[in-house]
């Protein structure tokens, strides 16, 4: 079918991953942190699929399914924690939760 250079796929995944990374380091709002997390997870999934496609093996897709499962569980728990955080501090600022410091 189409001959797409694998590198471009991986490059795309890498780009998305770094964007997600910027998101996490940058945003103080917990929601955005979680969102960036999702982006990174998705980028990883993309890399798997590209590799799977390259070697024509189903492992890539299976890995993606597991990443999906992980992402789902993680989001559920993350959002629940955000709710608790919000109830306690009435704001979504990540820096407030810094009791655990030296």
């Amino acid at each position, binding site marked *: 079918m189409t001959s797409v250079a694998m590198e471009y796929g991986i490059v795309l995944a890498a780009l998305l991953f770094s964007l997600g*990374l910027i998101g996490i*380091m*940058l945003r103080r709002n917990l929601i955005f942190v979680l969102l960036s997390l999702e982006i990174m997870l998705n980028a990883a999934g993309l890399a798997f699929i590209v590799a799977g496609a390259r070697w024509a093996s189903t492992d890539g897709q299976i890995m993606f399914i597991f990443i999906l499962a992980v992402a789902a569980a993680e989001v559920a728990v993350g959002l629940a924690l955000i709710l608790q955080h919000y109830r306690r501090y009435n704001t979504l600022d*990540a820096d407030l*939760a*810094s*009791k655990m410091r*030296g």
Partner: protein
Amino acid sequence: MYDLLWLIPFFPFLSAILLVVLGSRMPRAVNGAIGAGSIGLSAIITIIIGINFLTSPPEGHSYTQVLWSWIDVGNFTPAISFHLDALSLVMIFVITFVGFLIHLYSTEYMIKDEGYARFFAYMNLFVGAMLVLVLGDNLVLLLLGWEGVGLCSYLLIGFWYKKPENGYAARKAFVVTRVGDIAMLIGIFLLFMHTGTIHIQQILDMAPRIWVEGATIPVAASLLLLGGALGKSAQVPLQVWLPDAMAGPTPTSALIHAATMVTAGVYLIARTHVIFELAPAVMTIVAVIGLVTALIAGFTALTQTDIKRVLAYSTISQIGYMFLALGVGAFAAGMFHFMTHAFFKALLFLGAGAIIHALHEEQNMFRMGGIRKDMPVTFWTFLIGCASLAAIPLVTSGFYSKELILWKSFSSQLGSVWFYIFGALGAFITAVYTFRMVFLVFYGEKKTEISHLPGTRILLTLVVLAFFSTVAGFIELPHTMGDFTLFSNFMASVLPSVPVLEYSLGTEFLLQLIATLLVAVGIYIAYVLYVKNPEAVNNLTASPAGQGVYTFWSIGWGFDWLYDKVFVQPVIFISRINKQDFIDSIYHGIAFATEVLHRLFTKTQTGKVRWYAMVLVAGAIIVITLAVLL
């Protein structure tokens, strides 16, 4: 009869232990009796054995009694064994006899002192240790006696421990003698290493076969042994402690710092004479040291005001003469002078003690005077002692022994005319300061009242000692007066007779005449300066040069000042600066460093999620770059 030998040192030790343990519980009379009695018993046994030794000498003129084997490791097998021969017989005779008299004297002299039992315990311990030193068959046992004697001198100098300066004098004595002991220790090691045995007799008869004359080992060994002897006998480099040792009670000074301990060095050199003979260079060093000490001590004694310090310096000077005799190879003459010196010096010290007690603890001679009439016995016995010290001819023992030394120093192969000249000069100075002391103490007007006269026991001892310090000289008459050499033939079995160059009788007589003349002039000068016009001395020392010389002499030629600057101050300084042990600060440093690092790292934990994300990414980058680059 000889197997009673071990009893001689045993009695003093036994009574010392008794006094220490039960001393405080028993009345003074009993303590005194035990203290003096034990030495008396030893004296009696010594006399018995002495007579036995003279009449029927044991084979080989020596007797060895082994009590038990002390240590035996490999070929190092010192045993607790006593060796009696002519030399040690003379020594133990003097120690026990003079020791007994001094103990008798101190039973009355120390009667008012609160540490009565303690005093006798230490004195007995001292006599015991001295006897072990003299009778010791091997060098380690000799060292045991040597250090024991040093300890007792420390204990007795610091007897009145209340005053710190006594404590200081005692410490000074112990440390200085200990420095000499270290030299001796190394000497013993050297001898043991090269002869494989520690027994003195074996070393002595092996030495000539192993080493040729002047070989490095005998020279080194004899020099080291000389170091030990100098320390103990207070000769030039290490003589600073003896004058301060006068801080102890007078009987102590009499026994330890006049009669016995200070002559331990003389005994050591006489005992190991074979090694010294193998090193003639060292023999001359001994002679020179003896002479130099005699002169220095003589000059210093001229300027002393305290009666006991005069006697102390005169002791150093007389031992200088003994070293001179040993140095020129006249071992018998040295021992003879030791014997006579023990008598008259003990007499002088005890006399001085009686005087000090009479003038209620006044020791400065310039505040005494005119007690000739009030204390006749003390005066006459003191005079005999001084005569013997100054070596007044024919009538005193000091004359015979000192003449013998001067003659041998002139006539012996190793001797030289210079030895004789300086020796005679020394004799002259001795005469001056001795009679200076007599005139100052007994003549002139009375400055302090007499509190109480000495008791019978003190006078008795003074008289006995006076008798001996005159009679003892007659057993060794020089050629010019009958050539009756009983003492040296007695000693011949142990000490070799010195190779003498042939001189006519006339020269010997001439030299004796010169010496006696010098003594007479000395006495006259002392008379002029201190009796006829006392202010003559002041104008002599008035001029700045005179004053300088006077003070220089009075502080013992500046040795004390020198040692203080060279040794004492640096040691105190070193010990002060590093009180807190700088190595400890290394470990404190480590602890401090960990604390600083800890405080640094806590700053990195800000608790913010984003900060941790950044650190995570930075870490990842570093790892990947490393992976990529390497």
